[in-house]
């Protein structure tokens, strides 16, 4: 009987270091990325301590005077502080509210019968994603211009009146969010279309046999099958709750809309790189990152409890 037991070679328990050495060639392949991440991500993390120090160029990151929470207190007692946080959160939540649009678009693209038309829809709706933020912002400026802009030309042709979109701060959030929807609606469908393409056709046939119509199949088969992906995407979006697109906001900012367009990232840029207040700016940035991580952990925990889907 002893012969039927597969002869497992006795592997002596060896240390991790020893086993890594045995696979040195794979580690050689990973090494460039490891070094890169160390220099470009982990070294700056060590630099975060200047949020608690009075950074002086002459003294450097490690030797500047320790000041504790000074710069955090400075930020929270700043009269602009809550306005900036509110602006950031507002734009972020508004963007999050458009999150379902890509899901709906993906569900509808998935229903298209003609393969050629489907491919065409995908190709054309991806196009805006490949345009740079600088170009998007200049298109916004060109199209929304009060005297020469396309939007105003069209609305005037239809009997409307010319509107100063760029000079009126109340338009800013809408311009910011809906131009992003235009740019990334199609691109956002890819992840859901990938999931939908892996739904087994038998599931559809079975539902069809049971008398389900198209809407019912979408509702009872397709949506449940992309739900885990939706949850994951939602968690990841919540982990960026205070990170709104710096490039676009910075490029669309002008003196007329600053009241609603000043956000944490543009403020830290102005203060830090342009103003030279390195420690103060780092403290605000650190606050931003910590809120993001906290949100990620909280939302992830909630999702794990109620839906069994989570990032980790």
């Amino acid at each position, binding site marked *: 009987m002893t012969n039927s037991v597969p002869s497992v070679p006795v592997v002596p328990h060896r240390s*991790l270091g020893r*086993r890594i050495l045995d*696979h040195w060639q*794979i*580690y*050689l*392949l*990973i090494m*460039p990325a*490891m070094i890169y*991440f160390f*220099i*470009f*991500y982990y070294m*700056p993390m*060590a630099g*975060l301590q*200047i949020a608690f120090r009075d950074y002086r160029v002459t003294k450097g*990151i490690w030797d500047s005077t320790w000041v504790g929470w000074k710069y955090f207190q400075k930020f929270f007692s700043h009269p602009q502080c809550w306005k900036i946080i509110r602006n950031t959160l507002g734009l972020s939540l508004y963007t999050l509210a458009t999150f379902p649009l890509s899901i709906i678009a993906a569900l*509808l693209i998935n*229903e*298209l*019968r003609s393969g050629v*038309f489907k491919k065409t*829809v995908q190709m*054309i*709706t*991806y196009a*805006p994603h*490949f*345009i*740079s933020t*600088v170009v998007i*912002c*200049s*298109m916004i400026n*060109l199209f929304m*211009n009060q005297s*020469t802009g*396309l939007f*105003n030309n*069209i609305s*005037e*042709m239809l009997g409307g009146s010319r509107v100063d979109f760029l000079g009126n701060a109340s338009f800013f959030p809408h311009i910011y969010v809906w131009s992003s929807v*235009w740019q990334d*609606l199609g691109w956002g469908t890819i*992840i859901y*279309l*990938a999931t939908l393409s892996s739904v087994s056709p038998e599931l559809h046939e079975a539902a069809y046999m049971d008398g389900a119509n*198209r*809407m019912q199949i979408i509702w009872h088969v397709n949506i449940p099958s992309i739900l*885990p992906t939706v949850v994951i995407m939602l968690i990841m979006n919540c982990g960026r709750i205070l990170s709104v697109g*710096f490039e676009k906001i910075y490029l669309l900012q002008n003196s007329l809309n600053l009241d609603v367009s000043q956000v944490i*990232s543009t403020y*830290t840029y102005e203060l830090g*790189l342009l103003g030279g207040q390195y420690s103060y700016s*780092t403290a605000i940035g650190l606050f*931003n*990152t910590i809120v993001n991580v906290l949100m990620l952990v909280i939302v992830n925990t909630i999702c794990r409890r109620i839906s069994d889907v989570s*990032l980790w």
Partner: protein
Amino acid sequence: MKAAIIRRTRADKVFDVLNVIFMVLILLIALYPLYFVLIASVSDAYAVAKGQVFLWPNGFTWESYMNVFKEPRVWTGYRNTIFYTVVGTTFSLFLTIPSAYGLSKKSLPGKHLLSIYFLIPMYFSGGLIPTYLVMKDLNLVNQWYSMILIAASSVYNMIVTRVYFQSNVPEELYESARIDGANELKTFFAIALPLVTPIIAVMTLFFAVSRWNDYFNSLIYVTKNDYLPLQMVLRSILLNSQTALQKVDTSSMDVDAIKNAARLAYMAEAMKYALIVVSSAPLLVAYPFVQKHFVKGMMVGAVKG
């Protein structure tokens, strides 16, 4: 029974028709702004400003393009961006593909720790100023290689590539390669790489797009005029001269001078459309070639890590 089927197909037909109409609408919304930029770029400057361009070019002319190419900054920006894109994308692939392969190996010791090492920066980072200070200490600011070394990696792309390796290179192949005596490096280059060319194409495109369109990093790390990429040049031309029209000072000019100044201002406006076309065309022409791999590359597991 039969009636039920007919009724169902009728509902389906209505659904299909509405769906197609809706999609056509989406197509128009996605495409028209791009199409308008294209026709405005070859239209007469005055016609564009007066709102006489809607569906086709008005007063066809290459003048705007001539003006774009007369601008030396555009040439420098273009040259720099091509250099940053080609060399930078190569560097990014060098960082991403081999490490994704390594992490896809089931038997890799220390794999869990490595994954955590690569995942942490996805959610937690030093932020703007600490990163800037480290780059400055390492003499990476305002150098010809700044834009190549900075922002060269993406955890997300690494994960997507890793999942692709896992689901497209069968474990048995590694096994037989090992039995045949191939070492790990040989297995990577001769067996795994040829099987994942689609994801390499996708990654090349992704990295090239972020290099070509990058504005943020050049804003922070490059100020020397000679090193400015196209996006920085675009910004200074497209967004800073937006008041050209308003700058025309009519109080101190005679009629001809005003007309001439207005004409120049209109031309500056029209030139922007040509500039947008010139700077965006390379990517818009390139992505359809890789498009068929997008969906396949983005497997579900890719997001989860």
